[in-house]
């Protein structure tokens, strides 16, 4: 795993969001998560049975 957390240009921590692409997580951590890269994180969580967590994600 990478040692640094995702930050924006002003150095602020950038949280993953509902529409974060699974592909970007795969790229960041160098793993294949076995789903389409353009799948949105929120939808991925719902599909996997984590509806509560998906609902906690901001759009």
């Amino acid at each position, binding site marked *: 795993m990478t040692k640094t*957390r995702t930050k924006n240009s002003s150095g602020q*921590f950038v*949280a*993953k969001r509902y529409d*974060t692409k*699974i592909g970007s*997580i795969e790229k960041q*951590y160098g*793993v*294949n*998560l*076995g789903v389409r890269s353009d799948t949105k*994180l929120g939808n*991925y*969580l719902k599909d*996997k*049975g*984590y*509806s*509560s*967590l998906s*609902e*906690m*994600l*901001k759009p």
Partner: protein
Amino acid sequence: MSHFNYVGNSTLRNNLDIAFDHILTLIPFSESNDYGQLEKSSFRKTIIIYTASIIEALLFNRVNEKCTKDDWTSYKWELENIRELYKVDDQHKIIGGDYILKPSVLKLDKINLAIINKMLHDKKLVDDDLFERIDKVRLLRNDQHFGTHRVIKEYVKTDLEFVFSVAKEVTKLVQI
């Protein structure tokens, strides 16, 4: 934008976002076919610990907002000025002294999820059902202390959805 923008304390808000983000990172790992059941169970264990931390922090913030010094104070009887009146034997003495009801204010760094949950339940800020569910999260989280376990505990998806459902309820509660 934070997932916890209703939290006024910026340090707490950032810590909540960082913990939540780590959970979101670990979920796909716990679902990936690249890992066996043992690794997935370990990912889930970490997710449970982080989720419980979020629940605990949000509820602690609630306690800070809603509870007064009286709520932080408990009373217990203490024996002072003890005098030995009669020695029955080496392991038994009859004593006298002052028995005083003394206040004890809880220290913030000693407060834990069990205490926070009870304080909010006592003040009717958490209902019976949520109280039980939060306590179940606490017990799941405390399973990390495996020194006394008699079997190897495997963490499953239903454990995760359970802790997430409690976290979701708690996030709603603290926004009221």
